[in-house]
């Protein structure tokens, strides 16, 4: 039942604002990310993931990995909290999510270079 990948004219890029994201639980966001990247879109979220969330993203990608979906490539800018904000966040349970996440299937996206302040990616056109 090997389904052939449908040919596309190009890569679709979706942007999701933090307003759209803020009322969603992380599991919902994760499902949304997986649906989108498996559709071969590149997704840009106006929000940073923390380390645990990134680990969950990797885990989920590996669980869904098969011959048609090799996994993801992602990158982003993390929110940089100072120690005071971190302590405040641990008390209030509200963490700062300022930042950005760009994620796509590794079929369509390739990382070129990344550091704390700059990222470059290539969208593969096959």
């Amino acid at each position, binding site marked *: 039942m090997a389904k052939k990948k449908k040919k596309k004219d190009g890569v679709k890029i979706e942007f999701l604002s933090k307003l759209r994201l803020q009322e969603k639980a992380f599991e919902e966001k994760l499902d949304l990310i997986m649906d989108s990247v498996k559709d071969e879109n590149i997704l840009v979220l106006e929000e940073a993931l*923390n*380390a*645990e969330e*990134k*680990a969950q*993203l*990797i*885990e989920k*990608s*590996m*669980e869904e*990995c098969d*011959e048609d979906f*090799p*996994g*993801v*490539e*992602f*990158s*982003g800018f*993390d929110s940089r909290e100072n120690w005071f904000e971190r302590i405040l966040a641990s008390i209030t349970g509200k963490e700062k999510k300022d930042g950005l996440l760009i994620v796509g299937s*590794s079929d369509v996206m390739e*990382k070129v*270079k*990344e*550091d*704390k302040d700059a990222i470059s990616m290539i969208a593969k056109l096959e």
Partner: protein
Amino acid sequence: MFKKLKRLFANLFGKKDEIKLGIYGPPNTGKTTLANRISEEFTGEEMGTASEVPHETRVVQKKEKVRLQSNGKEISMNLLDMPGISTKVDYKEFVEHGINEDEAKVRSKEATKGVVEAIKWLDKVDAVLVVFDSTEDPYTQVNVTILGNLEAKDIPIILVANKTDLDDAEPESIKDAFPQYNFTKISAKEKENMEDLYKKVVESV
């Protein structure tokens, strides 16, 4: 903090649990080669198979009661060689390494499970060596994710810049990318600077 308390209690009640030392990193950085060096040195036996094909280790490899000695101190530990963590696994990459297609697909499936297993172990280890290939760019999401999770759980970390024997090795770039952690540079293959690593392990756990 919690981890430390737990260990303190375990010791109080006479249950001397061994320190679980996890060896983490992306695929192919030399984790198994390093695990074999440590194990060979302190138990006389190797513990796993190293290979130039990525995702060689796909199930966590354990070696119990490794008595690591350095600087007149001894610690008894469980050495855990983890599958390499990656965000993608493509069977075609294994085919390029000369593995036939069917085998490559099986290897891929096992590799994805290995990554999940390694991630699940992140909160069960007591201390971690994060192994880098010094010829590669250290600032990757895989490395940021591994380090961030360990830090959130207050687990001691030593960054190990491996493969310093290679001409294009730039171990210092690892220190520059993650300056807040304990750091050492080695060649697991050529057994260079292993003493410094042992010293840092004994000091930090």
